[in-house]
């Protein structure tokens, strides 16, 4: 049903906020018993910016979002919205819209009653409430479903209603807690693009939590990669992909091959190729270098390898090969080249900078 949704019209003026707010986390600490979930997080988000918090489960990304919303109280640091510390302001007074991972529509209300809820809490008059709720539903392309209950809507539609519900009160910040993870792949991409479109039109400061790196790269202005309660690196999707500062980021964002190499004075030698080292300096000696699948190409001569398998991925092909020392590598290349399993090939590394870690 979601595929029939028309391209929504431009956002109605009553929903558009005056402008996005600045969001700042300063040295935010959150403990769960002995476990430190957030370890002095610093993060500054510009007005109208779309920031994704990306990381594996347990890295603290959801805790950071819940701390922002007030659903978790922090144990240290400050949370500033437009320069005002809101760390001790309760959730219902923080004026932030939130969309949850699990379906969170009130089951006893229709879609439009759900959207009206926040306005009702703000004592908006009935007539205005209706108008604004309908506009919000129009924004997500669901006006015809206004009178349906949650159980009569698909998962994607429920999350659209939840988005309309979160935005109808013109909150200062929009918080999205893995809103797409319960949806089918196709609906996920569709709704992801729609969230981005609506966010751009409204200019609302948005924080989006996800464990899906593809999702984060596709949708965010900046991505903060989190690990063990700290932000490992924050940057534009391109920065993270091309210049990962740590091996963790290189590994987590996009695919990376691990290749044994030697490091000396900022240059990593891998399989005969001399590559520039990315990120913090390393001591000279043996290292493991992280090389992207698209930075390895087939060549007439070079590193000898045996093809293990090859998969067609639509616009490109990904081939697994095994080196003489048993290392498995992924190579990404154009679909016209069709390596056969067992075939002997030769490879070459492109001369791009790589990140690396000391090999013990």
């Amino acid at each position, binding site marked *: 049903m979601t595929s029939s949704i028309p391209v929504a019209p431009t956002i109605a003026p009553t929903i558009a906020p005056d402008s996005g707010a600045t969001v700042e986390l300063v040295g935010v600490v959150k403990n769960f018993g002995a476990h430190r979930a957030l370890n002095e997080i610093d993060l500054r988000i510009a007005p109208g910016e779309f920031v994704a918090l990306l990381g594996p489960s347990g890295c603290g990304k959801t805790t950071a979002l819940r701390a922002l919303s007030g659903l978790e109280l922090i144990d240290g640091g400050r949370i500033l919205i437009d320069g005002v510390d809101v760390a001790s302001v309760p959730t219902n007074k923080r004026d932030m819209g*939130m969309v949850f991972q699990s379906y969170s529509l009130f089951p006893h209300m229709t879609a439009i009653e759900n959207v009206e809820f926040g306005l009702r809490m703000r004592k908006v008059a009935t007539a205005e409430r209706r108008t604004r709720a309908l506009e919000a539903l129009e924004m997500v392309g669901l006006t015809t479903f206004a009178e349906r209950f949650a159980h009569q809507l698909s998962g994607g539609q429920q999350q659209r209603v939840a988005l309309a519900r979160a935005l109808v*009160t013109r909150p200062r910040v929009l918080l999205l807690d893995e809103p797409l993870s319960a949806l089918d792949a196709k609906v996920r991409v569709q709704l992801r693009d729609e969230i981005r479109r609506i966010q751009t039109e409204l200019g609302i400061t948005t924080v989006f939590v996800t464990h899906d790196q593809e999702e984060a790269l596709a949708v965010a202005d900046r991505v903060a990669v989190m690990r063990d309660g700290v932000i490992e690196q924050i940057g534009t999707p391109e920065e993270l992909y091309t210049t990962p500062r740590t091996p963790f980021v290189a590994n987590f964002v996009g695919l990376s091959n691990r290749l044994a190499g030697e490091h000396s004075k900022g240059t990593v030698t891998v399989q005969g190729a001399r590559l520039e080292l990315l990120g913090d300096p390393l001591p000279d000696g043996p290292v493991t270098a992280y090389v992207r699948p698209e930075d390895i190409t087939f060549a007439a001569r070079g590193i000898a390898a045996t093809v293990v398998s090859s998969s067609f991925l639509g616009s490109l092909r990904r081939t697994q090969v095994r080196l003489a020392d048993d290392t498995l590598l992924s190579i990404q290349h154009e679909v016209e080249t069709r390596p056969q399993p067992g075939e002997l090939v030769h490879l070459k590394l492109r001369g791009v900078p790589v990140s690396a870690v000391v090999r013990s």
Partner: protein
Amino acid sequence: MSNATRIGTEPSKTARWIILVIVGLVFAIPIISMIEFTFRVGPAGGYTVDHWTALFDPANARNYRDLFQSIGNSFILAAVTVAIVLVVLLPTMILVHLQFPRLRRVLEFICIVPITVPAIVLVVGLAPVYSVVVKVFGGSIWTLAFAYGITVLPYAYRSIQANLDAVPVVTLSEAARSLGAGWLSVLGRVLLPNLRRGVLAAAFISVAVVLGEFTIASLLNRRNLQTALLQVSQSDPWVAVILALLSLLFAFVLLLLIGRLGSLGRGKETTP
């Protein structure tokens, strides 16, 4: 055996019917006998509707005044007990579910304990407590509801807990709070409408338990429906049986309503 998780084989169709008929007779024979008894003229035989009409005849109102007062007492007790469940148990359960999930096992244990304590044992403990209760609240019949509030705990707890487990209470209240709702709005506008089934079931079953209670009332020298029934049965067995039948019918209707609430809910949860 085709189904590995099943213990033993399913009874055959004939066996099932035999079991159903036997169980049905066990329940039906006493009830039918009671109905038959209320129409008897006397030990000699012959049938009449006089016993039924006499009970509701205004001319006999004086004779049955105590009896009807006792029935009234039972309804007052039922109402106060339900109020205790709604005002004390329900908010406690919601609070524990949302804010203190670690206390859930403790609360469950406390609420289930009364089912393991025989009423007669409970009374031994309650007697000295009630000497204090009478001093504080007076000797009105409704104070007995404090004791009933404890005896209905297991049933009320189960009904409400089943509903709490079926509804994503935490997410719904977080969503409501993020939309600007204070705790009272969360409770009144979001949680209670979604816990309606469990709360109603808890209320109905509490009423059924209170209307059927004899031991505590009798041993604490209070008058309720059951103690009055015992008393009246010594002078007028027909009236006692008629009232027993009526209270049985009432409880039956209550249980049917609970069943109906449950099936309505199941129908609603199916997604298209």
